[in-house]
């Protein structure tokens, strides 16, 4: 009964991966890849995306999980609304944000003009602003998921610990430092690693918002493969992915270890 999956695995995992490595076998391909300024820019973009995106997202998720565990009816309702970005497919919402950032017609610059009388920036025409916006889109989409995970983590902490701390006159910060954080530490680290792997594969946030532009300066490793495919240079596309493996495999190894415990 394991045969159907093995068949799928052989035909659509082993074969493509093997074929991919075979396409990327020539050392000359890597020389050309490293010579391509777009590739080095994409590597830098990916690192910026990961380091800023994930830390910002996880810190906010940690903070918001503390907010959402407060027992209030309106917070319960808010939490239902809060998971919308995760429940809704990403294509329409990313395109919606893309138009909001349109310099002439977009809502954001209209509001800026009304409030300050000055023209807002051309959001998606400056590579660093555009990349920051892609990071924000990514955070917008995945923040609810990680907040839910951390809420589950917080709810698993025994309430008596907080009661005892209150009796001893502990401040909010002390409670966080001595009870919440030690209990959530492992979950927080695992979540960050998993989020890193998923963020590396986040194609939509960049591709649908900036399309890699302006001038191909906002590509990340996930979108670079498609760029080379468009240019009909499949071996470069494969080589770019092979170059990402030293970054991905240790993370995957870490997660496998965690899960098989």
């Amino acid at each position: 009964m394991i045969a159907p999956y093995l068949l799928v695995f052989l035909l659509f995992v082993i074969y493509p991966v093997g074929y991919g490595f075979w396409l990327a076998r020539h050392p000359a391909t890597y020389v050309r890849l490293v010579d391509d300024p777009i590739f080095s820019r994409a590597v830098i973009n990916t690192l910026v995306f990961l380091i800023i995106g994930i830390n910002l997202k996880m810190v906010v998720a940690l903070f918001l999980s503390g907010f959402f565990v407060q027992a209030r009816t309106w917070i319960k309702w808010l939490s239902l609304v809060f998971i919308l970005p995760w429940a809704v497919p990403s294509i329409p919402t990313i395109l919606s944000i893309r138009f909001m950032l349109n310099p002439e017609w977009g809502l954001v610059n209209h509001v800026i003009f009304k409030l300050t009388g000055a023209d807002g920036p051309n959001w998606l025409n400056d590579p660093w602003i555009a990349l920051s916006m892609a990071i924000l889109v990514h955070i917008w989409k995945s923040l609810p998921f990680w907040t839910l995970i951390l809420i589950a983590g917080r709810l698993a902490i025994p309430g008596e610990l907080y009661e005892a701390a209150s009796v001893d006159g502990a401040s909010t910060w002390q409670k966080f430092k001595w009870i919440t954080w030690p209990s959530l530490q492992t979950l927080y680290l695992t979540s960050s690693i998993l989020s890193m792997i998923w963020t590396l594969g986040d194609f939509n946030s960049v591709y649908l918002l900036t399309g890699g532009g302006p001038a191909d300066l906002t590509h990340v490793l996930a979108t670079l493969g498609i760029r080379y495919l468009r240019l009909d240079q499949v071996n470069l596309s494969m080589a770019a992915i092979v170059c990402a493996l030293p970054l991905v495999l240790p993370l995957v190894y870490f997660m496998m270890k965690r899960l098989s415990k």
Partner: protein
Amino acid sequence: MKSSWRRASTEAKLLLVGIPVLIWTLLPIYHLVLFAISPKESAFAGQLWPDHPTLHNFAVVFREQHYYLSHFWLQLWNSLVIAVSVGVLTLVVATAAAFAISRLRVRGGRTVMNLALFTYFIPAAFLAVPMYKTMGNYGLLNNQWSLILAMVTIAAPYSIWVLKQASDKLPYELDEAARIDGASPPQLFRLVYLPLMTPSLVAIGTYALLLAWNEYLYAFLLLSNDTQITLSVALGNFLAADDSPWELLMTVGLIYALPPAAIYYAFKRYMVGGLTAGAVKS
């Protein structure tokens, strides 16, 4: 007196977090809805609410009265057929594998599980180009089967893992009792295993279905004919023109977003419980 003042200040602080969270969350979605119910001029003028809200855009979409919309119903149908096929096929493949690994304890089951997990953790975007070339070699490009099979490949590993976890929790004595009563493995599967696994099967079927419905990258790589593409690809194609009819794009986007959101909220209990617990085990 002092304590009621303190309580008010706590509430104020909570509101200070809650209001920005509400705006941040809803703004892009509100913007989507706003465009769908606005005439083009008012949407482009950056109004926060149209002077004359209208359902005209929906009428245009439903009657396919625009070049970009000429196959709207067909593409909606394509999305549906592909999503349902992926859901069903993933369930078949993953349930069989999980049953074999967890209940029949076939040799090499652990290895297969680890291989599957490994695939799960490799970002799908990295496999997209080799998958595209592979489908080309198999002669499946521009055939909807290519997208269905690719999505089953992506959805299966996590599904097998979740189903195996759930299946490991069923007491092994059940299997033994059934065997003593003379049940063969297929009977065990049908009469004991499937009924007990129903909640997990619902969660996994929904997971695979939504994954396929929401997919963009693989769909636009593997399918290109206007009559075969899914609605997600059709949405992306709107961007090809300089003067894209954004109000229609957003209307289609809203229609496309509603079913998964509805399913998500309907099955929220299963999804949040089953899937998040599986995703991160601390």
